[in-house]
């Protein structure tokens, strides 16, 4: 059984008196120790999906309207807040896009790393400190004794993201959710952070949900990939399969307009037209207004995910 199993996750936001669905019927599967890439253009619902998994959405205005999230035997959407708190930071951890603003400016690095240990273990202070030092070394931070005493404003963006990772790893989580962990960093630092994540996965055996809008990153670091468009998963499969034989016209378009994939980092290549915002999504397939393979039925009925051998696409007229 998978470590993480998401079925039909639907999330709406209240806006001007009505609820708009920004994430719709999302399915995801992630097995222990694997890296799943969640890829899609900005605003397609990646962060909302990620935060739903940890129940970190602000409710209101957010509302989870349906679906189920199973994580390591827990029914996440049914847990009470206390049980959810016990999972957060312990077995489920998360790092964010903005390392510059994601650390508390008024507490030391040491305090913030040790906090998860304080909350989830009964290690004595000396052992917590020992563990914090070990975590900093593990994420490749030199002079860890000094770093523990420093404040976030004294560190560079890359170092802060490493601190965030050390913090997330404190209790040895089964799943690390990394929401665009390198988008805000310099290109060289991006590569270092991604390589660090890949190495940690090898060493610690945790699963990673890696959110990105960069297909190059997916190709290089992920085992599986889910492509998201306008709040829905439109294609899902092993990286090798999906990159070699994309089935959804959206994925196909993305790959076709990416001339040299490996090692190339940047924004998703553009396809003519733009993503419809949540309040202007057409009935039927959300990609229909931009799709070259559009059929009559695409405009009225939403295709479900279908396919074989774990390679699924939501399309009435797939490329292959």
């Amino acid at each position, binding site marked *: 059984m998978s470590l993480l199993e998401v079925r039909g996750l639907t999330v709406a936001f209240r806006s001007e008196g009505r609820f708009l669905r920004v994430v719709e019927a999302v399915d995801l599967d992630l097995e222990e120790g694997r890296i799943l890439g969640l890829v899609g253009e900005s605003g397609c619902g990646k962060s909302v999906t990620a*935060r739903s998994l*940890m129940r*970190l959405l602000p409710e209101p205005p957010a509302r989870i309207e349906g679906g189920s999230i199973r994580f390591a035997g827990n029914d996440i959407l049914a847990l009470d807040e206390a049980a959810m*708190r*016990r*999972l*957060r*930071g*312990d077995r489920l*951890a*998360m790092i*964010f896009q*903005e390392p510059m*603003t*994601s*650390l*508390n*400016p*008024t*507490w030391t690095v040491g305090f913030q790393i040790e*906090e*998860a240990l304080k*909350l*989830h273990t009964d290690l004595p202070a000396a052992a917590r400190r020992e563990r914090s030092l070990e975590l900093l070394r593990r994420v490749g931070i030199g002079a860890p004794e000094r770093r523990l005493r420093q*404040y976030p*404003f004294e560190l560079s963006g890359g170092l802060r993201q490493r601190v*965030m990772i050390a*913090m*997330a790893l404190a209790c040895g989580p089964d799943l690390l959710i990394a929401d665009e962990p390198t988008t805000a960093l310099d290109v060289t630092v991006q590569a270092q952070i991604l390589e660090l994540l890949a190495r940690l996965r090898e060493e610690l055996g945790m699963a990673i949900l890696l959110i990105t809008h960069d297909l190059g990153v997916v190709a290089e670091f992920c085992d599986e990939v889910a492509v998201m468009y306008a709040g829905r998963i439109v294609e899902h499969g092993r990286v090798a399969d999906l990159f070699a034989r994309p089935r959804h016209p959206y994925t196909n378009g993305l790959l076709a307009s990416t001339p040299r994939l490996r090692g190339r980092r940047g924004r998703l290549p553009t396809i003519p037209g733009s993503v419809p915002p949540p309040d202007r999504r057409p009935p039927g397939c959300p990609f229909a207004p931009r799709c070259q393979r559009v059929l009559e039925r695409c405009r009225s009925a939403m295709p479900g995910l279908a396919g074989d051998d774990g390679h699924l696409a939501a399309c009435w007229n797939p490329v292959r």
Partner: protein
Amino acid sequence: MIGYIARRLGQAVFILIGISLVTYVLVYLIPADPVRQIAGRSATPETVESIRRQLGLDLPLWQQYLRYLGDLLQGDLGRSYIQKTEVATLIASRLPATLELMAGAILLELLIGLSAGIYAASRRGRPADRAIMVASFAAVSAPQFVVGILLLYVFAVQLGWFPIGGYGTLWHLVLPALTLGLLGGGWYARMMRSAMIEVLRQDYIVTARAKGAGRFRILFVHALRNAALPVVAMVGLDIGIFMSGAVVVESVYGWPGIGQLAWQAIQRVDIPIIVGVTIVAAVAIVLGNLLADLVAPFIDPRIKFRR
């Protein structure tokens, strides 16, 4: 840090000279004649003139001021026209009551204002938040004497829990301090609420939640410290404001503070006391500000003492 404090105090001397000058000129412009007040209605013109000469009030303004400034720089605030006592002695005799009321008022302001503000922010948009906002609006717009008299009537006259007025024990302090604490607490509540709401939106609050921190921990460990700076600055300001006395509350409760001293001096055009109290208040404002600036780096490590 010692150097920093010395530099700040050095600057303060110039601020004080400026304030003494402005106060002196303003008081001089008041169309009331202090000599008439001292001499009384039936005094002969000769008596009036001799008093005027004695007090040096026959000299041009700039000479009067320079003489005053010379004394001031030696720590001499002059003598009261009416009571003939040293102004410094008069102020010193009022100082314990004023400091006591200041301490009580600031303590209650913080207690009431911060807890209400933090709670409102954590319940943003819900009935509890709205109720606190309405109450704090009422507090900041209520006149001091209305609240003072109301508390006096209910808790001293009707219930008899506290003395009806006067000064001495801690029981005497409760109602006047509570009056100031409730009214000032309204400002603190509003300020604390908006600062907390701003902080609770920050990314690092999500990080803390993702770590498994609970509501209480989020508010008091992660948010409060980041929202505390405006509060510290306001306490610094309050120290100055309360030093010049809480005139209305002191009158309602017969509290022998600097406010009463100043009020009487204004009625009698007792210029040395008026200027003296103003200068003492200015010193308190400068010290309060300095204190706030010294505390700030301990709250937010990004702030360093400026060189």
